[in-house]
């Protein structure tokens, strides 16, 4: 830059040699962003690898398919009694003696999307938050799958499965001082099914069209009556979505209930909710009626519990790492970040719901040919898939539409005969026999058409779809990924304008989940042509009067489904939580979400 001859040099300005200029230019490169980069570099914070533990879950209820939460799942789940789904360890390991005190902040991407009023909310995480304020009639023991007492001390089920009679405990009291009794339970269920109440998760969990009415037999006895058997009802009563609210509080706050207040009998009382920011709860010192599945009775240990919304995954992980929050829900790609951080441990929780499936449209070429569908199965190496960065080694190879953690004794061995093993050589032979000849460009063709699949997915799922493209290309198939937001994906699946898609749903309702995708009248049954045998088996499972009957029919249905090869049962998914090592005794409910009643800070 030459000096402007019209500008008088400033006597305060200093002259500069080229060498000094270069030195200072380099030095001045430590601008704020670059200074940040230098500050970010350097040695690791600690040499020790973190503890990884496996939390519990069993089958549970909740959100939608794909990678974002939102829509509901329906219907009943693993019933009580032997043969129920069970998972290891209901709580994480602890060290030391439990002591009261402290505040724990748990970060979710979003704690409450609309309201904490579970009668009208469709959002899974908010049910999990509300469950700390609202007690439930029963609690699922995630170790055994058994349904255990909570607000109900015992219950009877009629022989025809149409009547559930609960005996209620006398000690519980609502936080507003009003009495907990049969009338309160009836008021809750009446409100859920009332014509003016927005239909949400709770309506389906209560049985939907199968539900008839609830009677308050006396102060301590309540009877729920169904029109048709609903074997999953009892387990779903353990979900926060069917927690019991104070009818007085609901009436008092009206439309503001669930936003300006939430009143239950729970171990924690509602303090405040700031939508899209946080929910604050404080300990209920009078609490002495915890679930029989808990490690202790009496008041909770934590003084305060805060659920904080941190939408951005990287920010949530950073908040955990720097101690701003003590627990956070993470994604697969973040597990590696915490290797070497000895103040944080990673907890993996089997996700309740379906297996993650690459489903194929059997009404459309090329996947209308069962041999093509079989060949695509043979082309997918599930173990290798799970080892890739997008999975970070978390999850298990899928076998059936339901994962092993959802079925009794985790035993899918009777369905393994229908599982198609990885065999790319045989895949090639099968495609040759089906008339798909390998082209010079590495893509098979038949009658002038390429063996190409339009894969419709949500943008966030692309990392778990792209590797599939690589595997299919080795057998001469091509994958065209078409991605968009949730609505784009759902619209395409409902209109059947796809060849393949990544699908699953989460929830604690085995028969409902299978019905959702593979029953010909199910909302997302867009993959298979209608099969009367599958429909019959699914109907029998959904309407079964006992759990044994339900599982028998479900396994029949799953076997038939797998023989039709609707797609690739790719992997059994897991939730991942990061927790400070100070956090002890984190309990997990059947949905795979933390329940902090037993939790304390070391």
């Amino acid at each position, binding site marked *: *830059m030459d000096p*402007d001859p019209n500008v008088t040099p400033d006597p305060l300005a200093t002259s500069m040699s080229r060498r000094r200029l270069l030195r200072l230019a380099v030095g001045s490169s430590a601008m704020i*962003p670059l200074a940040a980069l230098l*500050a970010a570099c350097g040695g690791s914070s600690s040499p020790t690898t973190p503890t990884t533990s496996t939390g519990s879950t069993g089958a549970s209820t909740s959100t939608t398919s794909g990678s974002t939460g939102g829509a509901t799942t329906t219907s009943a789940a693993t019933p009580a009694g032997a043969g129920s789904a069970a998972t290891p360890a209901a709580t994480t390991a602890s060290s030391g003696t439990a002591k009261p005190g402290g505040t724990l902040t748990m970060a979710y991407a979003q704690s409450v999307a609309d309201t904490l009023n579970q009668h009208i909310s*469709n959002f899974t995480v908010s049910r999990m938050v509300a469950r700390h304020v609202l007690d439930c009639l029963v609690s699922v023991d995630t170790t055994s799958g058994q349904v255990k007492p909570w607000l109900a001390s015992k219950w009877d089920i009629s022989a025809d499965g149409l009547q559930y009679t609960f005996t209620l405990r006398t000690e519980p009291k609502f936080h507003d001082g009003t009495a907990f009794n049969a009338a309160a339970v009836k008021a809750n269920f009446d409100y859920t099914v009332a014509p003016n109440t927005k239909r949400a998760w709770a309506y389906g969990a209560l049985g939907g069209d199968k539900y008839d009415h609830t009677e308050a037999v006396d102060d301590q006895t309540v009877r729920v009556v169904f029109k048709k058997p609903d074997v999953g009802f009892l387990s779903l009563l353990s979900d926060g979505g069917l927690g019991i609210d104070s009818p007085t509080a609901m009436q008092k706050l009206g439309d503001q209930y669930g936003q300006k207040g939430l009143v239950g009998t729970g171990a924690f009382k509602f303090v405040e909710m700031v939508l*899209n920011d946080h929910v604050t709860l404080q300990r209920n010192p009078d609490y002495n009626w915890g679930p029989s599945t808990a490690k202790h009775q009496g008041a909770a240990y934590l003084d305060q519990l805060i659920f904080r919304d*941190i939408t*951005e995954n990287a920010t949530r992980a950073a908040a955990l790492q*720097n101690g701003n929050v003590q627990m956070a829900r993470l994604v697969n790609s973040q597990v590696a970040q915490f290797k070497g951080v000895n103040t944080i441990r990673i907890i993996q929780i089997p996700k309740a719901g379906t297996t993650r499936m690459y489903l194929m449209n059997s009404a459309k070429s090329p996947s209308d040919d069962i041999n093509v569908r079989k060949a695509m199965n043979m082309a997918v190496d599930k173990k290798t898939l799970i080892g890739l960065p997008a999975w970070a080694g978390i999850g298990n190879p899928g076998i059936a539409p339901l994962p092993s953690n959802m079925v009794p004794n985790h035993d899918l061995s009777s369905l393994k005969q229908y599982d198609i093993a990885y065999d790319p050589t045989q895949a090639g032979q099968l495609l040759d026999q089906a008339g798909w000849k390998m082209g010079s460009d590495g893509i098979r063709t038949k009658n002038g058409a390429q063996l190409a699949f339009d894969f419709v997915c949500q943008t966030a799922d692309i990392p778990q779809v792209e590797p599939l493209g690589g595997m299919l290309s080795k057998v001469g198939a091509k994958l065209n990924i078409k991605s968009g937001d949730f*609505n784009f994906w759902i619209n395409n699946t409902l209109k059947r304008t796809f060849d393949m898609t990544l699908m699953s749903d989460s929830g604690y309702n085995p028969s409902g989940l299978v019905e959702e995708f593979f029953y010909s009248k199910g909302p997302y049954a867009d993959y298979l042509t209608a099969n009367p045998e599958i429909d019959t088996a699914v109907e029998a499972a959904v309407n079964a009067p006992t759990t044994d009957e339900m599982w028998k029919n479900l396994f029949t249905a799953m076997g038939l489904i797998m023989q039709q090869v609707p797609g690739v049962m790719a992997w059994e998914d897991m939730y991942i939580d990061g927790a400070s090592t100070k956090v002890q005794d984190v309990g997990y409910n059947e949905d795979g979400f933390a329940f902090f009643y037993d939790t304390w800070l070391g």
Partner: protein
Amino acid sequence: MLRYASKRIVLAIPVFLGVVLLTFLMLHLVPGDPVKAMFIQNGGATQSEIDQLRHQLGLDKPLPVQFWDYLINVLHGNLGTSIRTNEGVGAMLLHNFPPTLQLTLAGMGLAIVLGFGFGILAAVNRGRWLDSVSLIFTLSGVSIPSFWLGLLLIYAFSVRLRWIPIVGGPGWEELILPALALGLQASAIIARLVRSSLLEVLSEQYVTTARAKGVANRHVLVRHALRNALLPVITIIGLQFGGLLSGTVIIETVFARQGIGRILVDALQARDFPTAQGAVLFIAVVYVFVNLLVDILYGVIDPRITAATG
């Protein structure tokens, strides 16, 4: 001056109407049936519920009638009701505006301080190393995406150095990094404009005359040069304010801050169109208002403008 200000206010009206028209059309430009899209995201609905919402939103009426109703509602301050929370959109936006305004003003303040600082340094040291430093600063500022910068700042100052909390700290501490991430790009633009504008003014004859009369360089700069160099910079600052306001959409998400930006992102993801429309309209109206203030401020700083145009 009053006549000048009145003229600017009158001219802002068609701009406002244009903004209302565009936000109204937003709903109709969405592919597919927006009402069905709202329900899909929020758990499904029966046909009667869909029809009810369609009627509630007025989507069963002819388009011009719909626009007229929308305009009348907006003029009465009625931005509709969130289909997620059933809360009034207007009340929700007003409640969340203060944190967004706080962040925007902090970002703007930082942008002005850094921008003027580097710009003045560069202008008075033209051709020297400080000028080069300023160039590096401005290039970095306009090149680095705010999203990436935000994450980098979090990692450096919150995770590695632990100087600043991400969430849960005192209000002012939590504002530092988001304000920096938001304001840096604007400061770079302001710095370059201050430099070029000041250089132009410093070459004027009256500046030479002032120096010849023995006025100290600092006084020449502040009393004579800077004021005249301000005019184009103020215009840019007004435009930058709108950019910063819309930039809060990203920054509030990255830093988990409350505000209108977060509401807009959540509303779009949940297909809560009344809320999304309301938020976009709100931001646009604030932007129009700020630029109106800039226009009026122009007249205050340079009386020649009001004389010429008033």
